[in-house]
């Protein structure tokens, strides 16, 4: 039994950044820098004027440090501490707009829910420590293996606690209910980092503990936990997608999409865990898919949140209804948004396709009923992502009144967006390169580097189960356009611009423009109820609690009153009348005799 904490200095020295950590740390650094470039002009908005920029930047720095520390910590306690620093700093960032009730309420919900999850993490860590006697990650596998051998029940409890903690952070349904509130409330650069990276840190937890630790130590247990993880992933991916389709607010839409994407990644990780013992090659594909999707979604989702921020910066609203036709007014934002939307929709040749494609192979080809189901759910979720991506883009940039004038955001903001778009394109056309690098992050003997398929090119990915070369598709598409252009003849002149007519008058003259969300109501109707059904509601204290804990009322108060009462009664007895004393004596004697009888009997 451990009798004391190890010295603090020793604890604080446990850092190590392995390939797995780096796979999360590098996107973190990139996103944190990009969002930091975006933030200054964004925060100069009127609505943030009264907030202290120092507070923001201090929290932002802590936030970044916390995230990096969480992936670099090589010690359970340090991991927990970094985790909480990350949460705490992000809470301050979410609540940045202190006078806005909605933002603070969201921040509150966020912090409380994630803190409750941290408590689970803490308890799990304590159990691991108490059982294994070591806090370092080096001993983690040993501890897990020992637990699996000796105390499987306890191991499952620990894993269950870890599951709750990571699932909450990763926004998996229903534990991630904070997400749709917190992400919209935060300033856009913060939302970008929250959604791009912090949510992924929750998934890092899954990979670190379940894949890196557990799958190597106790494959059977890991496979068993793969099922609930994949199931949570499926539910989140589908419900999140439905909710995103139903949303009318840009950032709420993106927040639900984060839940959905997070669910997809969890699905991949879960599938990897399940498959690892029997089909290591497919497991590898699923896990690689999940990791690739983590990286690509980090860039895509961050970019989308920055775009949502830019839209809010210029239109003052987050509602798709209030926007529309912004393509000409904000060309840079529109182009980057287009890249991100097409990417998140999973259209080849853009980036999100790769991850989904690999996960699809990993799940369906396994032939396991549950995983095939997961594959179909993945398909549904993919189509939903197409729906909400197109809804977002068309609602903001295409539909509605055509806006004139230059509304483009300041250079720093546009620059940040462009940088992310470039990253997305880089990830898109060279999937083989990144997958090769990520396969190095797959841990342990099970998914070791030896299992990496050979012969993957930089531009083409070709496992036996599928093939994909995005650049070639682009070439074929371009060639097709060329042929078609030849076939239908050269355009003599540019098409003439006319106004949209309806019912005898031009749009904008007497007819109100079509609002984006109004025409996506079918989506709202058909999909809105799916997620909202299980949102958390405020808890009220039952009425009986208040009086029942008032000890003064039912113990001390009566005691004091009784004491005073006895005193007063005694006082009244002393009337000075002789015969009353005699009566008392007789009564006393009678009582005594009765008592004697009772005692003897």
């Amino acid at each position, binding site marked *: 039994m451990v009798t*004391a904490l190890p010295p603090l200095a020793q604890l604080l020295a446990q850092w190590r950044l392995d390939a797995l950590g780096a796979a999360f740390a590098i996107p973190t650094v990139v996103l944190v820098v990009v969002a930091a470039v975006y933030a200054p002009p964004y925060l100069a908005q009127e609505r943030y004027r009264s907030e202290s920029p120092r507070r923001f930047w201090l929290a932002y720095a802590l936030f970044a440090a916390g995230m990096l520390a969480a992936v670099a910590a090589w010690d359970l306690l340090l991991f927990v501490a970094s985790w909480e620093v990350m949460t705490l700093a992000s809470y301050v960032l979410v609540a940045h707009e*202190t006078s806005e009730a909605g933002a*603070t309420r969201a921040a509150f919900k966020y912090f409380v829910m994630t803190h409750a999850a941290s408590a689970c993490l803490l308890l799990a860590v*304590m159990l691991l420590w108490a059982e294994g006697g070591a806090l370092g990650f080096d001993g983690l596998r040993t501890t897990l293996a020992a637990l699996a051998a000796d105390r499987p029940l306890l191991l499952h409890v620990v894993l269950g606690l870890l599951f709750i903690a990571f699932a909450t952070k990763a926004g998996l349904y229903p534990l991630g209910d904070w997400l749709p509130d917190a992400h919209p409330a935060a300033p856009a650069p913060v939302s970008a980092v929250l959604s791009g990276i912090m949510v992924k840190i929750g998934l890092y937890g899954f990979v670190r503990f379940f894949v890196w630790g557990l799958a190597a130590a106790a494959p059977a247990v890991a496979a068993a936990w793969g099922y609930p993880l994949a199931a949570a992933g499926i539910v989140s991916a589908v419900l999140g997608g439905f909710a995103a389709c139903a949303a009318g607010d840009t950032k709420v839409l993106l927040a639900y999409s984060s839940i959905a994407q997070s669910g997809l990644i969890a699905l991949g990780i879960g599938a990897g865990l399940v498959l690892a013992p029997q089909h290591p090659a497919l497991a590898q594909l699923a896990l690689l898919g999940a990791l690739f999707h983590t990286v690509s979604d980090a860039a895509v989702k961050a970019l989308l949140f920055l775009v949502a921020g830019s839209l809010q910066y210029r239109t003052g609203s987050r509602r798709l209804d209030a926007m529309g036709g912004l393509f000409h007014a904000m060309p840079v934002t529109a182009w980057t948004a287009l890249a991100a939307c097409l990417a998140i929709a999973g259209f080849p040749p853009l980036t999100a396709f790769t991850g989904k494609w690999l996960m699809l192979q990993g799940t369906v080809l396994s032939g396991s009923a549950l995983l095939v189901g997961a594959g179909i759910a993945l398909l549904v979720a993919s189509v939903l992502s197409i729906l909400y991506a197109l809804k977002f883009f068309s609602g903001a940039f295409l539909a509605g009144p055509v806006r004139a004038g230059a509304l483009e955001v300041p250079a720093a903001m546009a620059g940040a967006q462009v940088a992310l778009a470039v990253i997305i394109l880089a990830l898109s056309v060279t999937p083989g390169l990144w997958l090769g690098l990520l396969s190095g992050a797959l841990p342990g003997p099970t998914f070791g580097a030896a299992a990496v398929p050979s012969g993957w090119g930089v531009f083409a990915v070709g496992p036996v189960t599928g093939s994909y070369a995005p650049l070639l598709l682009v070439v074929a598409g371009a060639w097709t356009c060329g042929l078609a252009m030849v076939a239908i003849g050269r355009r003599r002149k540019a098409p003439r611009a006319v106004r949209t007519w309806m019912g005898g008058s031009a749009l904008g003259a007497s007819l109100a423009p079509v609002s984006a969300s109004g025409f996506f109501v079918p989506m709202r109707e058909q999909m809105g109820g799916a997620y909202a059904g299980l949102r958390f509601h405020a808890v009220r204290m039952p009425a009986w609690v208040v009086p029942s*804990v008032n000890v003064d009322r039912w113990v001390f108060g009566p005691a004091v009153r009784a004491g005073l009462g006895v005193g007063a009664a005694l006082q009244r007895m002393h009337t000075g009348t002789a015969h009353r004393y005699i009566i008392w004596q007789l009564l006393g004697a009678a009582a005594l005799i009765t008592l004697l009888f009772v005692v003897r009997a």
Partner: protein
Amino acid sequence: MSDAVVWGFLLLVLVPLAGALLVRAAPRRAADTIAIATALVVAVVAVWMVAAYGIRGASLPLGGLAVVDRVLAHPVALFGFRLDALASLVLLANALIGVACVIYASAYVGPKNREIPASDDRRSFYFWLLLFVGAMSGLVTSATLLQLFLFWEITTLCSWALIGYYQEEHGALAAAYKAFLMTGGGSLALLASVIILLAVTGSVDFGALAQLSAGGRAGLATVLCVLLFVGAWAKSGQVPFHTWLPDAMVAPSPVSAYLHAASMVNAGAYLLLRVVTASGATGPGTGLPSGAVTLALVMGVLTLVVAVAQFSYQTDLKRLLALSTIAGLSYVFIGAALGAAGSPLAAQGGALHILAHGAGKGLLFLAAGTLSYACGTRRIADLSGVLRRQPVAAVGFLVGALTVTGVPPFAGFWSKFTLISGAVQLGGTGVLVAVVLLLESVFAFAWFLWVGHRVFLGTPSPAVEASSPPSRAMDLALILLMVLCLAVPLAGLPLASAIGLGPGR
């Protein structure tokens, strides 16, 4: 035994006493200077003592009384001073938070206070406060139960005087009287326990109970334990004596922060830890009787639940904090009980929690005090948007809340982590207790955050709009405590790790 140790112990008790007398006699203007200087000297001495002897340990036996020796037919050590890791933690809390509170009080108690404007003459206030500092130092460094009891009664007296300081304030005298009755009544039980112990075992050492239990008289030992617990519960406002502490919130905020959060109320918890660490874990023939340990554990958890259950309907910020204090102290009681049940980590965590919680809760009270000072109200409903007006208090409140609820990297995390890990190590019931503690942490956290949101964020309410700026002294005190909240683990963790179970130390 060097002279330095002797001087150290003497200074700890005598400097505040002297300061108290001096401030009483000095002119009104010099009172602040004298009081702050005294507190600073005590703090310096305390820090030095802890640094020098905290882990190594130091003691100054003073022997007993001839009369008693004769009656019991052998020499009994009735008095003496001792400093070890456990005492160091509490001493640090007492001395460091003491400085902050005295500095704070120099601005808070006076005519500028919008809630309760008071006279500029703070001499009697300082008198009681410094007297209390001395008494508490003595209490912490006492080597025997008897000496501890004597200082104990002095702190009760100081508490009575300070709660009733605002005599004109509605309910102040009644609250003071109530606190005095309840804590005083409790100490009668403690006295009884000490006297019987002395009569039966011929010792007033902290380990005497364990000897009694080991000596085959577990029944009597249990009864004495319970009597001793009653004293400790009453002092620390634990169930069923938890009702005086919220009422005592009519006292000036620095008093609430110091006596009723950081220092005096810890006495009961400290006593228990003292007895537990001196007794060792329960086991066949050793340690405290298991029945008493179970009772302590059960009452600790009960207190926790009862206190937290009352959070939800509090309208007064300080009453809420008082309830939270009750809950916080129950951690220490639980830690002690778990320690007695065999987990040294839990006892260490409990000890560290005294310091961590003291710093955090002191900070919370002072932050709340700043609000009532500046805005003239402590009602949660009347306050909102304070962040814009009183940023230091707001940040202080947040830091305090994060500290007492155990969010890393603040002090409370380390103490709670150690304590709960200890509970988890015990397995079985320990894990259940750990779950309850974590649930409480989360709930308390949520509640504090919610109150914090209501009070500090949003648009300023009329009361806040009209608020006056806080004084520098008050902000300084807040900042000191914030630093403390972060710095506690640095010194506290090594000290706590040095606490072991059993008479060996």
